[in-house]
């Protein structure tokens, strides 16, 4: 019973903490570019404002257009519930493993792409086709990276993975170096951050995510934006908890839980800062170079798997 309550609280933390992470990245980025910058809690204000606004729907829109935001948001929120953030061993973690997580993302993306094409404007279809191009290349790389981890810990369950890594004394796995680098590249591509997609612009040459949700307004837009923030949060939590799992609570007593919360907050803020620094330093690349970029991610994950077989197993 306690486990379920904790699982719900943890999911709530992920869902309601996600806008702060996005705002934090934006704030640090503005500081790095010596701009004033909105405060980190600005995304909450935006979401509240959007929820209060009237919804305008195009005449040519089908019901899919209306239900897509709810589906996308709820699937992403469901994905949040299987990611171990503060504690491991929660009942929700036992239900789904990391392959299900990838499946959730695929389902969400499917509805996002459908919604983009639904109204029939040029931008929506363009965004959808771009998103699917990127996704079809990013997904194998992500799965390969995850399998690299799974080969070491002998499980695809996220909580088991993290538990195994905490229980071991500190080890330097060559394959993890590669899987981490590959998954960072995939995460950047999947969450639409700068070298692949720019979340802050509406330039038709470059936009991918923005093009798909261009027709949305009001609470639909809020849900779509929130879903994107959740995705960034999930990927960040996955990266920091899989590759430096120290501090994640192992049992359900208050002290480890509080410690786990503090540690994960610190790790996420650090990761957000690193992301902001990378985004400030890098330029957005041409869309036609994205396959090469994701090919690099795939090769990295493949090398991780090979170095696991060659160097670690004997």
């Amino acid at each position, binding site marked *: 019973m306690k486990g379920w309550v904790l699982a719900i609280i943890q999911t709530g933390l992920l869902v309601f903490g996600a806008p702060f992470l996005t705002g934090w990245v934006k704030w640090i980025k503005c500081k790095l570019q010596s701009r004033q910058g909105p405060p980190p809690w600005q995304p909450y204000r935006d979401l509240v404002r959007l929820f209060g606004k009237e919804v305008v729907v195009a005449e040519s829109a089908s019901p899919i257009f209306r239900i897509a935001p709810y589906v996308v948001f709820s699937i992403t929120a469901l994905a949040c519930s299987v990611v171990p953030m503060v504690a491991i061993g929660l009942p929700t973690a036992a239900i789904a493993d990391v392959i299900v997580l990838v499946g959730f993302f695929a389902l969400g993306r499917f509805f996002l792409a459908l919604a983009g094409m639904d109204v029939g404007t040029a931008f929506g279809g363009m965004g959808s086709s771009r998103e699917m191009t990127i996704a079809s290349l990013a997904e194998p790389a992500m799965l390969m990276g995850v399998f690299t981890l799974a080969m070491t810990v002998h499980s695809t369950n996220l909580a088991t993975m993290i538990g195994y890594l905490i229980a071991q004394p500190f080890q330097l796995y060559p394959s993890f170096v590669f899987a981490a680098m590959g998954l960072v590249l995939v995460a950047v591509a999947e969450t639409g951050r700068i070298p692949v997609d720019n979340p802050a612009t509406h330039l038709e040459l470059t936009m991918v995510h923005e093009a798909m949700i261009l027709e949305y307004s009001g609470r639909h837009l809020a849900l779509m934006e929130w879903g994107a923030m959740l995705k960034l949060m999930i990927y960040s939590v996955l990266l920091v908890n899989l590759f430096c799992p120290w501090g994640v609570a192992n049992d359900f007593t208050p002290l480890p839980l509080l410690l786990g919360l503090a540690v994960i907050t610190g790790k996420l803020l650090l990761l957000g800062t690193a992301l902001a620094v990378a985004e400030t330093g890098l330029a957005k690349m041409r869309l036609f170079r994205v396959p090469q970029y994701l090919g690099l991610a795939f090769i990295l994950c493949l090398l991780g798997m090979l170095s696991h077989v060659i*160097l670690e197993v004997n």
Partner: protein
Amino acid sequence: MSLTQLPLAEQAVLTLAALVLFTSFLLLAQNRIVSLIHTFAWQGGLLFVATCLMALTSGRHHLFISAFMTLALKVVFIPWQLRRLVVKLDIRREVETVGGPSLIMIGGGALVLFSYYVVLPIRELSFLATRNTIAVSLAVVLVGMLMIITRRKAVAQVIGFMSMENGLFFAAVSATYGMPMVVELGIAFDVLVAAILFGIFFFQLRSGIGSLDVDHLNRLHEVDR
């Protein structure tokens, strides 16, 4: 012996081995000549750190000499020399097209697998903890060869050749804690002389065929027509 039973320093050597292989792949994918030279210098740097770590853990101090020779030659001198040549020949901004980049990368992956299976029986002859890295060093050699095959420009081919030598050096260090000093010194001077000769060769190529693209060599004839 699985990885978890090794001391941390040897795990670090294995990780460095994997990173050396990774820089090999980066060399394969890189299409700007200056960043190619930099990546080559990084590979040398990783070799230097790995050799130092191995010297420390095994207590064989003659490895430090090899390590510092690597540092002096492959991290500092040869990249500096190549860079100077590239600036002199004014090909700094030149971009080389690598035909079918993803295909070549997949080929590289296949070579890694191949070298792993080739090395499986040889590995049993060594008793060192780091003997698993023989496969990695063979892969570095083969990927260097793949780079020589797939590149057109002479500078990139020379870097492929040098990275092959890196692979050989790494194999020697990881499998048997280094070759005899005489052999090692000989190879180091060979590489040094090769680097200088290649420099002269570049200028000859340029004045002969007007470019560093070795495909032009196919059209050479003994007599001018």
